[in-house]
């Protein structure tokens, strides 16, 4: 099995304070990995690091098999300006960025793809609506349609199920399992432990450092979860410079 992603003693953070601390490990190609941890555990930070929005403070993230353009990233919905006057169709069409770039036109074939993606997430008829008029679930469906168009090998999902109803979650899970079946690598940040146990075979439990990483049922034990919560509560404004070299 080849590695899709390798973390080598990775430290990511803000203003020198680590949010992800000395993380080492490998994500194999085609893995469906749940990333779980308390608030402030560095889950979103890790995704931002992988996608290149945030530079490592130390260590490295390697994805030699996968080009930067082959990574699709779904930010937390709160980071999107939903008051901006843009239609569902245009938002979804942005998924073609890698192929259309800054100036490229969108061909008739690609228009079909856009329509197919929109109907695959159950948003037919919403094409002309502006995103401000969508409910939370509809917005998340639109973003999944954009992911469909991106057709990426590595897919990073940051809390995609927050405040969605059961039907929407199950529709979106179907898409995720379809991607998994296509041997794509998927990292998904979650808070719902039951969902992780039911749907995702592998889990990384993160609390700035990796608390446990492996088969979901081995990782999500009461003991590990307690440990994770304790590790996250320690933030020291006057922390000393970290001298650790390897995890």
């Amino acid at each position, binding site marked *: 099995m080849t590695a899709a992603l390798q973390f080598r003693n990775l430290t990511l953070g803000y203003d020198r304070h680590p949010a992800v601390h000395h993380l080492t490990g490998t994500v194999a190609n085609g893995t469906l990995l749940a990333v779980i941890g308390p608030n402030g555990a560095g889950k979103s930070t890790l995704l931002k690091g992988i996608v290149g929005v945030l530079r490592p403070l130390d260590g490295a993230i390697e994805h030699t098999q996968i080009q930067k353009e082959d990574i699709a*990233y779904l*930010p937390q919905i709160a*980071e999107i300006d939903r008051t*901006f006057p*843009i239609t569902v169709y245009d938002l979804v069409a942005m998924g073609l960025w890698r192929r259309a770039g800054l100036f490229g036109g969108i061909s008739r074939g690609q228009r079909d793809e856009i329509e197919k993606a929109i109907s695959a997430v159950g948003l037919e008829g919403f094409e002309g609506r502006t995103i401000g008029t969508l409910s939370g679930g509809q917005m998340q469906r639109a973003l999944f349609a954009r992911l469909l168009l991106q057709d990426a090998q590595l897919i990073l999902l940051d809390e995609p199920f927050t405040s969605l109803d059961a039907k929407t979650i199950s529709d979106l899970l179907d898409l995720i399992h379809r991607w998994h079946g296509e041997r794509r690598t998927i990292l998904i940040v979650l808070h719902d432990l039951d969902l992780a146990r039911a749907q995702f075979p592998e889990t990384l439990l993160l609390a700035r450092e990796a608390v446990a990483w492996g088969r979901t049922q081995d990782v999500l034990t009461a003991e590990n979860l307690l440990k994770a919560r304790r590790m996250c509560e320690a933030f020291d404004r006057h922390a000393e410079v970290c001298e650790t070299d390897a995890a």
Partner: protein
Amino acid sequence: MYDFLIGPFVEFEFMRRALVGAFALALGGAPVGVFLMLRRMSLTGDAMAHAILPGAAVGFLVSGLDLFAMTVGGIVAGFTVALGAGLVARSTELKEDASLAAFYLVSLALGVLILSLKGSNIDLLHILFGSVLALDDATLVLIAGIATISLLTLAVLWRPLVLECVDPNFLRSVSGAGGPTHLAFLALMVLNLVGAFHGLGTLLAVGLMMLPAAAARFWARDLTSMIVIAVVVAVVSGVVGLLVSYHSGAAAGPAIILVAGVFYAASLVLGPVGGLRRYLVPGRHLEA
């Protein structure tokens, strides 16, 4: 009717020049204003307009009311403050609005101080409120050139600019165009403000950018129509403002901005999208 609406422009060259200048400012400034509004940078535009003053004042100090010197000075000062405020906001705990406020207050005071060293009160009025009725050829060419550059640049940057507003993290994940796009947009803002500075002066330069944009927000749901409406509002404000000024003898620049203000107020009350109308005329609820 003809005498009232068309006559002034047929009869007087300075009115025709003012009209052309107002059209150019409207075409370049209104679309930039819409993006400023959607990026929640409306007050940034205002602060930047003040920040141009010391540069223009230094130009004035060196070579009097000279177009080239004041334009270059204004552009340099504008960029310095735009980049400086951004840098302070990014590298310190001070938020961007506070650092802009600090920069523009210092700039405004510095500008007026420099002007007071050499100029008269008339010069000061001229610089603070512009002279849309006294645009010479060179100034018109400058303003028209800035409008052309603005429209072309916006056409080229449209896609990344929109994406940077909606979902900046997504843009960063697919492309490195976000940073350069933001800088280019700041440059457009400064250029348009410098252009507007010649016509409307430091204090009113943002008027033809922000008021039409804010008015358009109440009429359109999508970006393209919003920009078209903003441009139309700005152009009509220019024409009506000049006519009002001609017939009443009031100052032209403030008249133009006030007409735009009337459009804004009317849109606020009458506009169908998110304005006051839904409270004034609630109507019965729909089926779906």
